[in-house]
């Protein structure tokens, strides 16, 4: 098991955002987390990447306990997080955004080589390398945010709403990108409101509602599930 969460809860002050969430991801898998707004999907991502400390429960990554590690330690473990709304550094150039993705000591020596790989994956970013990231289009920004996360050579990539705010055509590009990333052997955990499309790229998914996991299953199972069909697929 690559990542496993056992009965993890998380609070913002006195407000509990996650209730005993248990979840497992094997190496090479793509797993989705779906659910309505405010269900705690982003909180779940932030807990895994160390931005929000869990208030109870245990997390292990490749067998090592990682509960309570701060965010920069999680990156060193091999977990990279593409945050909601991309969160690029808008006044830094595209290349500086990618450079900072390779900040951890392990990634620095092979920075130039990795940069070439990322530019190979996203030729558009190479064209715009000297441009401030804030001037990119939405789709380009998403590519830059994914590229930045990949710069640290992660084993597990967390993606929070990669399709949010993008035009339908660009959304399709982002999802085809997820397939390409998977093909390179990366494990992916992806949070999405765009249930229809995310179920096309993941092997399995969890349904999160009001901070708790309500359903889990393979993509095929969930596509056939009555609740999912009615509430999320509009069928």
């Amino acid at each position, binding site marked *: 098991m690559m990542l496993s969460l056992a009965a993890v809860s998380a609070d913002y002050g006195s407000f509990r955002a996650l209730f005993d969430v248990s979840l497992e991801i094997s190496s090479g898998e793509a797993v989705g987390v779906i659910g309505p707004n405010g269900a705690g999907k982003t909180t779940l991502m932030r807990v895994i*990447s*160390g*931005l929000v400390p869990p208030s109870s429960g245990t997390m292990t990554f490749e067998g090592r306990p990682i509960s309570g590690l*701060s*965010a*920069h330690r999680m*990156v*060193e473990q091999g977990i*990279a*997080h593409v*945050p909601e709304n991309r*969160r690029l*550094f*808008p*006044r*830094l150039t595209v290349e*500086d*955004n990618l*450079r*900072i*993705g*390779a*900040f*951890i000591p392990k*990634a*620095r020596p092979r920075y130039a080589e990795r940069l070439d790989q990322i530019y190979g994956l996203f030729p558009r970013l190479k064209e715009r390398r000297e441009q401030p990231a804030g001037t990119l289009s939405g789709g380009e920004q998403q590519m830059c945010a994914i590229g*930045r*996360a990949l710069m*640290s050579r992660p084993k597990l990539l967390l993606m929070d709403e990669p399709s949010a705010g993008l035009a339908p055509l660009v959304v399709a590009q982002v999802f085809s990108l997820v397939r390409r990333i998977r093909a390179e052997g990366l494990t992916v955990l992806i949070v999405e409101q765009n249930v229809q499309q995310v179920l096309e790229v993941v092997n399995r998914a969890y349904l999160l509602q009001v901070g708790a996991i309500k359903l889990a299953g393979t993509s095929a199972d969930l596509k056939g599930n009555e609740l999912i069909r009615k509430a999320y697929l509009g069928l």
Partner: protein
Amino acid sequence: MDIYLLEAIINGVLLGGVLALLALGLNLIFGVIDVVWIAYADLVMCGMYVVYLLCAELGWPLPLACAVAIAVVAVLGVLVHLLIIAPILGSAPINQLLATGGLLFFLQSFATLLFGTEFRNLGLRLPIIELGDIYVSSSRLLAFAAALIGAIALYLFLRRTFIGTAIRAIAQDRDIIGLMGVDQRRIYIVTSAIGGALAGLAACLLALQYDVHPFIGNTFGPLIFMICVLGGLGDMIGGFIAAFIISQIISIGGYYSSTELSYVLAFTLFIVLMFVRPRGILVR
């Protein structure tokens, strides 16, 4: 052109170099850590005393004394951060102002206790350079050159290194910097050390031109804050330009009237510009 006016302009440029260096340090700390070190000029005062002690009292060679002074003030900067800023980082900005304001009185009083209030100098005079009819003090020229080299070194560090990139990034999005594998606390410490080192370098350059006394920070401290605000707090390029504007006003104003009046002029212009460009000269 009037030869004395030219001399005043040259002196203004030379003075601007050191002020620009200090404005860079203060802006760096404000931009990255989001605190204003009110006692910044008093760290410079500490550095001047270190140069004085090593050079005049112990007879060390000047370059070595300067290197040690820069290191000492860099460490002082880290201590200011760890002991004063870090514990109150999350509290209201006014608390941080009061805390570093308290440090100002502490440092001034402590220096008075150790050295008394008398003016002290290194006891060395660098030669005056004659360029035709123009006289330029070589200590000012040296100060300007060193300040410029310091500024360029900082620029290259911020542009070319991973830590420099993180320092530039952190001011733009503090919350997610950890996701880049960057330990925010470590960046704050490095930034404080650089801010201290810049103050230390300025101390060396000022010690060549001015006598040191416990309250010397009061003479240029307000000037540096004015420069930073004029350039836009946290805007390193704006601060750099503002330093030269202010130093020119003081220098040319001093030539046409008196030094006192030139300060009045500088602060008047500052107030006017604050109405026109409240967020800094480069921000419309």
